[in-house]
């Protein structure tokens, strides 16, 4: 009853949704349009929306123009997965400590973690470069993974903590009374119960790690075979000309695997956000 809309209201809602989604999806349509057209037609004036000779040639040619393209796509996913895995290994115990235990300097140390959120790699590039050089990690996958992990730890702790706080304490207390050690309780009682929360938090970490690879890649890595897609894609900007159609084709192809994964995961992700992020 309360949720019923009049016909006009429905039209209004759909029109507004259409406008909103046009804004969101416009760049993707444009990239697809560009990827289908031969370069000389693309670069012709006056402006034309379509040309008669669509082709998927760019999707074939791009592998020739940038031979390492496949590698870049895989690198991106590999780096994001490694960041996610390392972040979660570090975040789970810390989030548990903040959710459940009492200890000295609890608030102060949590404050430090959250303070880190204020900085991004861009502010600390020079000394970070030196640290990575000292540790011998420059120009390797690690040069992009390690800083990525560090800047995602605070968010991970913050998100996971609120999930763990919602798990009933009684189960842990029961395990403890039965003689289980603290670590055993964490491993065998808390973590299995927290699986939905772990999925949501690790998905959020993966998204952040996948979305923001550009800066560390162009600053800390000069080995082409380790480059992730956001940096490697700029190889289409050549000395002579930019092969825009292939660049767009490669962009769309490159994000396709992750988009497909999200298509399957989105139900859990949205459900998890709905259940989690709100009631702190």
């Amino acid at each position, binding site marked *: 009853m309360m949720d019923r809309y009049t016909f006009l209201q429905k039209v209004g809602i759909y029109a507004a949704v259409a406008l909103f989604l046009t804004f969101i999806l416009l760049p993707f349509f444009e990239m697809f349009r560009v990827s289908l057209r031969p370069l000389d037609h693309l670069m012709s004036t006056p402006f034309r929306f379509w040309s008669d000779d669509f082709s998927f040639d760019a999707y074939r040619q791009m592998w020739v123009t940038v031979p390492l393209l496949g590698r870049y796509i895989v690198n991106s996913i590999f780096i994001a997965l490694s960041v996610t895995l390392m972040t979660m290994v570090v975040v789970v115990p810390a989030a548990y400590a903040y959710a459940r235990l009492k200890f000295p300097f609890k608030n102060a140390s949590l404050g430090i973690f959250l303070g880190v959120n204020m900085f991004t790699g861009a502010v600390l590039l020079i000394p970070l470069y030196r640290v990575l050089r000292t540790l011998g990690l420059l120009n390797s996958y690690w040069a992009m993974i390690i800083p990525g992990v560090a800047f995602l730890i605070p968010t991970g702790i913050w998100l996971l903590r609120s999930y763990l706080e919602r798990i009933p304490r009684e189960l842990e207390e029961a395990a403890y009374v039965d003689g289980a050690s603290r670590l055993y309780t964490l491993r065998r009682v808390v973590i299995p119960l927290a699986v939905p929360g772990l999925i949501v938090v690790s998905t959020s970490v993966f998204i952040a790690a996948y*979305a923001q690879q550009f800066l560390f890649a162009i600053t800390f890595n000069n080995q082409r075979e380790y480059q992730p897609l956001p940096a490697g894609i700029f190889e289409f900007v050549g000395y002579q000309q930019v092969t825009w159609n292939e660049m767009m084709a490669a962009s769309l192809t490159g994000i396709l695997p992750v988009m497909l994964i999200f298509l399957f995961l989105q139900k859990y992700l949205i459900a998890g956000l709905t259940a989690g992020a709100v009631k702190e």
Partner: protein
Amino acid sequence: MSDTADGQITRAPRRTLPEGAFAWALIAPAMIFIGVIVAWPLVETFRLSFTDARLGGENYVGWANYIDLFNSGKFYDIVGRTFYWMFLSVSLKLVVGLIGASLLNAAVPGRALFRVLVMPPWVIPIAIGVIGWKWLYNGYFGFISGILQRTGLVADPVSLLAQKTSAFYAAIVTDVWVGAPMVTLFLLAAMQGVSRDLYEAAWVDGAGRWYRFRRITIPQIMPVIVSMALLSAIWTFNSFEIIWILTEGGPRGATTTLIIDTYKVAISSQRFGEGAARAVVIVGLLTVFSLIYLYFLNKVYKHYGAK
């Protein structure tokens, strides 16, 4: 029970760490990570800001970098532009996010699909989305200029990234595009957490849709709005990739924010000391901003009675 019959509990005495030590053992890996990769470089940035470090070497120069910085008129322009960039972009992200979340929350067929279609800008690499925008803004071949020409609004191609004013606002639009989907989804999640009873009670009393939105939805999700605003503000302030790929801070500095300026000085020109001084200023500004904000956040939480 047989084992208590003789007053003995046959259980091995447990050897456990005290709670405090156990907790610190759990936190230690995260702390060490942050210490090496964030805290130490931060201290090092402070030190470098008092030197004239370049590739060759470094000498202590006292406050010289800071004095140069504060005596240059250009620097104040950049600070002002950065805050304008932040306020405008964050406000738009919140407005777009709020409208988007309300639309996706409306009980109409197809909303599950709409929710999926909002996600792409959030889950793809920022750089890839920005490449799409760069083409959209292109004066000769891009869609926006093309539409404007076809509809006769402009006679000649408009290169949005080539003029100072339009480049700045074009970068804002792209930044909003990147940031709004996440705000939308978090606000949507918050809206769905609002108890239905509140709406029903108001509805029974004859409250209209707009009234319910203003007097129930907004106050109920206010804590989430305010925390999203803080997070967005910090991310927007620090935003690098979007501006760098679109304009590299140009044309003629029109899109140069503090982060872009710092990157140019420190990395492109390799004047590490001067770059570090700028980084310290950024850290200071963000700290002051966040403290003021947290003060207000506290008030909002108290006012709306959230935990």
